């Protein structure tokens, strides 16, 4: 029998980036908040320090900061005719664990979506005809516009201390920034990172082809910066260890370094780590979540935490799983197309390439993801899709560096994988590779979804979440098209040799590709097309708010974090302005 605790104003399920952001905003408004985190605390001054943080084996190869698959995982299959099997250890994507969550180890690519991305279904119909969208492509307009979200994108920039160069300031286009982006109300808080040699070459080649290169926006401060909460941030040191690690310089945005220092001591906030939430307690009549059930993994005791506001801020999979196992909303059925929880699961469709330059000295260990150059000419609706046979697109990024040596040793195609010849080629090309990537969109398809697995269980005895996903013809065509542009850029750079790496036909759960999973608790304009409304409030439980990329109707050709952050601030603002005074639905169904 669970011990019932005293009611609080708000409870966060997951103290990752959005959980910490919401907790901070709520406590600043005077609410009493409890943060439940199933993983450990993360203490930057103890853990994110030199020299221990520079251990590639521990953090990059053994994925120290990721969720423990023995406690909880998901099952996977490519199509609904197959039997799903558990992901026994994370690989294709890497959900994080502990305070700060997945944003502790992000690469820092800090993007806004295009204004057209938010009304993509309408834009495609307007431009290419009412019947242009194939029947199995279940893309939707977002219930919120770019202009509405802009102030919250700006606030998120200033929480992160983001580095970059504006290409559109209040409608004025600025050469050197992204001229395709929506109007920004302000510049980036800190200047763009200095470009790596490879990025400079990529930009020159792109410009020669008539494209519009600009420095990659980066969710880290390039100079010392004080964020909106008064936390003093360091500057990026171009260490090359970003991708699966926290930041020793307190520059890359994360909850432990950017929010927790000012949230931790707040008497209105209580952090409970190793608190594994198993269920939302749902009152179907009242359409409310009265509280959450969790197990204290340090004692084995079960608790019920009642709360006026419940914020579901787990990773994409945890959010969807929690609704399905708590009986909130109708599970999606791909055969009938009915039901909404688990619908429109999307991924990110990345495809890389590597070019080798005999006479360059590219110092592959110096760098950060933000020191690369990008073109956005072939993203979303930035280009005409007439006659191309697909919708969507993505940005193209290129540069050198940013990888320690277990994982960062590019050699040309055809090189042996071992032996003296391998060694010779590895040394020969170590300083000479430039890497490219295409950040392709995934447009929702009715065959790709999340539901409950019939066989496998997690350590609390709950059935696992099941992912059914494969790349669609549309997304493969999009990806091949982006790679033709990469091919043109590489040729213009005149490399010694190069390798394009198109995606395999089937999505595979190894090796690592991207942690950009989206969808499952999609937002929309009515209970008939979505799980939550434009303020991230569940249609079926008016005190339940869902954070993160599980809210996306589909995934544009950018990294999701910028929009995850903007949506959290947008929801926090509405909750504090209106919901707290008059609890109830913020949008009438």
């Amino acid at each position, binding site marked *: 029998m669970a011990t019932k605790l005293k009611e609080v104003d708000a409870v966060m399920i997951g103290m990752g980036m959005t959980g910490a952001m919401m907790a901070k905003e709520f406590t600043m408004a005077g609410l009493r908040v409890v943060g439940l985190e199933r993983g450990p605390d993360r203490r930057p001054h103890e853990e994110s320090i030199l020299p221990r943080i520079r251990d*590639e084996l521990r953090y990059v190869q053994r994925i120290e900061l990721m969720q423990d698959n023995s406690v909880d995982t998901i099952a996977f*299959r490519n199509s609904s005719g197959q039997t799903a099997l558990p992901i026994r250890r994370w690989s294709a994507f890497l959900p994080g664990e502990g305070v700060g969550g997945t944003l502790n180890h992000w690469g820092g690519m800090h993007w806004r979506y295009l204004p057209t991305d938010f009304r993509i279904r309408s834009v495609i119909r307007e431009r290419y005809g009412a019947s242009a969208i194939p029947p199995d492509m279940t893309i939707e307009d977002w219930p919120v516009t770019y202009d509405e979200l802009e102030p919250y994108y700006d606030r998120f920039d200033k929480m992160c201390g983001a580095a970059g160069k504006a290409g559109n300031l209040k409608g004025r286009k600025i050469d050197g920034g992204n001229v395709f982006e929506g109007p920004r109300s302000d510049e980036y808080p800190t200047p763009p990172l200095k470009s790596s040699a490879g990025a400079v070459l990529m930009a020159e080649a792109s410009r020669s082809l008539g494209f519009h290169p600009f420095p990659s926006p980066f969710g880290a401060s390039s100079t010392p910066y004080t964020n909106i909460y008064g936390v003093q941030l360091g500057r990026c040191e171009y*260490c090359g260890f970003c991708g699966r690690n926290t930041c020793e310089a307190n520059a890359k945005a994360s909850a432990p370094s950017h929010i927790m220092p000012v949230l931790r001591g707040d008497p209105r906030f209580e952090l409970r780590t190793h608190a594994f939430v198993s269920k939302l307690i749902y009152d179907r009549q009242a359409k409310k979540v009265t509280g959450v059930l969790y197990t204290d993994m340090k004692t084995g005791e079960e608790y019920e935490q009642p709360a006026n506001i419940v914020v579901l801020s787990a990773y994409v999979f945890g959010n969807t799983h929690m609704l399905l196992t708590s009986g909130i909303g109708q599970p999606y059925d791909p055969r009938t197309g009915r039901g909404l929880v688990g619908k429109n699961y999307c991924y990110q469709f990345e495809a890389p390439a590597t070019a080798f330059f005999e006479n360059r000295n590219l*110092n592959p260990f110096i*760098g950060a993801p933000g020191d690369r150059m990008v073109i956005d000419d072939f993203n979303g609706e930035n280009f005409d899709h007439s006659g191309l046979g697909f919708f969507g697109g993505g940005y193209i990024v290129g540069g050198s560096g940013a990888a320690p040596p277990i994982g960062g040793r590019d050699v040309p195609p055809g090189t042996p994988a*071992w032996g003296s010849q391998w060694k010779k080629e590895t040394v020969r090309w170590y300083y000479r590779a430039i890497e490219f990537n295409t950040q392709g969109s995934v447009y929702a398809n009715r065959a790709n979804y999340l539901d409950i697995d019939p066989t496998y269980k997690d350590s609390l005895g709950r059935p696992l979440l099941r992912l059914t996903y494969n790349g669609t013809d549309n997304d493969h065509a999009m990806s091949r098209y982006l790679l033709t542009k990469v091919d043109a850029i590489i040729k213009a750079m005149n490399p010694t040799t190069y390798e394009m790496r198109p995606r395999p036909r089937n*999505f595979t759960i*190894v090796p690592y590709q991207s942690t950009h999973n989206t969808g499952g608790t999609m937002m929309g304009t009515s209970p008939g097309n979505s799980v939550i409304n434009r303020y991230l409030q569940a249609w079926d439980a008016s005190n339940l708010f869902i954070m993160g990329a599980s809210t996306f109707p589909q995934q544009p050709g950018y990294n999701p974090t910028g929009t995850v952050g903007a949506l959290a601030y947008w929801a926090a603002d509405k909750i504090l302005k209106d919901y707290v005074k008059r609890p109830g639905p913020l949008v009438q169904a």
Partner: protein
Amino acid sequence: MAEVSKLPRRDFLKAAGTAGATGAAMATGLAGCSPTTGTPTSTEANASAAIQPPLVLTPEEEAFFSASVDTIIPADELSPSGTDCGCVTFIDRQLASAWGGGAKTYRAGPFVKGTPEQGYQLPLTPHQFFVAGIQAANEWSRKTYGKPYDALGPAQRAEALTAWEAGKAEFSSFDSRLFFQRLLQITMEGFFADPIHGGNRNKVSWRMLGFPGLPATYADKVDQYRDKPYVVDEPQSIADFS
């Protein structure tokens, strides 16, 4: 141990011999079970070779790993052999670690083969995987060449690895290609990881590549070294800062 590790191995053994009965027994025992690679050992990398007995590897497993890491990373003008770089020590410690015991891995059944897209589906931990895999590889080697893998000459060792890599070797009840992939991966980790984990002795692979190691704070060096090689006299590892 810091001073000792700078001595060439035979000097260390001599020193250990005078250090008392326990040290001498340890050193003697070690000398007895150290595999003979047949390849000339290099100077510095050998300094701290096999100072401690293996944590989990049996003599057969140690001999197998020594032979295979020396084939994957042969001694040549660029580096000493895999064994002399500490790869076997690294593998031993990794297989004895929480990771080697299957930590943070979902290990509930049912166990089903699945599709290649569904990834690793065996109940075996990394340690169990290599124990079973080495038995299968040596059985195959005996059948094919009449000897276990470590008793093969350099040409046959390479030929065998090539067959496993291509999936052309039929191991009994074991996936030879998957075995090769994991063997290659853990060997490369041992060669390139920070020396704190027992491999990459004396930072040999970092010197070979020109990887400067720590502290990796380059904000003030990006402009100066754009398209110019950034070279340090001595790469720095975690231990150098500790």
